[in-house]
């Protein structure tokens, strides 16, 4: 994958993410805050973003969404889980 392709992919992910996030916030703010893991203030801003603003935000070479599981320990438990049967209950 060359850099241009990469940027294009990132832009696409960003766009779907932002559109989904805004729709979620507009539909049910409380659940959206839980699902997106954002603060109420951020949710309010996303709620009021215009299409133009979203398009501008999206056209960056950075991903706008971040990895949710920021706890190394929890992630390790999920990744190297040899008791998956018991845990899945």
């Amino acid at each position, binding site marked *: 994958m060359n850099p241009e392709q990469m940027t294009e992919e990132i832009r696409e992910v960003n766009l779907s993410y932002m559109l989904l996030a805004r729709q979620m916030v507009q539909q*049910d*703010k*409380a*659940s959206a*805050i*839980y*699902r997106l893991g954002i*603060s*109420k203030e951020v949710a309010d801003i996303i709620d009021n973003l215009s299409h133009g603003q979203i398009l501008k935000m999206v056209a960056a070479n950075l991903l706008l969404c971040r990895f949710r599981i920021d*706890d190394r*320990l*929890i992630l390790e*438990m999920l990744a190297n889980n040899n*008791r998956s049967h*018991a*845990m*899945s*209950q």
Partner: protein
Amino acid sequence: MRNKSMLTESRQIQMASELIRLGARLQLLETETDLSRERLLKLYKEIKGVSPPKGMLPFSVDWFLSWQANIHSSLFVDIYRYLLAHTDSRGIDATIKSYKLYLEHVVAGELDCVLSMTRAWTLVRFLEGRVLKAVPCAKCGGHFVMHAQDLHADYVCGLCNVPSRAGKTKKEKQANPMDASKLLAA
């Protein structure tokens, strides 16, 4: 009728029907709405097609501490606490939202729906009454439901320290009357 406002009343009826669809018992509806018992009864019959179950609500505190129930309760409480901390949602509204998010999680993970709406509501009341408490696990840091009066300085949760026969009871294999996807779709 205590209700003078039609708008308040229609909102309450809407909330009551949502609660009934999620499987709430009549006592819960009586506590959380100002609607009369007769109207709630009618509403219940109209939605469910059967009379509401009679008898007391499940009131056991220990139920929330048994292994599988504890994990499900803790998941629900985590969602609930998150909503309280980060949104304006409060009271029964927060309980309903958290319960729906819990159901979604159950559907997504193809798990058994262990926690009923009525139990979830009871759990919230136990938390508010300081009978139960969310305690951090010393190992993974996740918060789990525990007796408020227990010593929990180095409490280790049921997931970090899985009991040997966890989730292997016979009862587990029986058909579960609560189907989370149906509850959500209703």
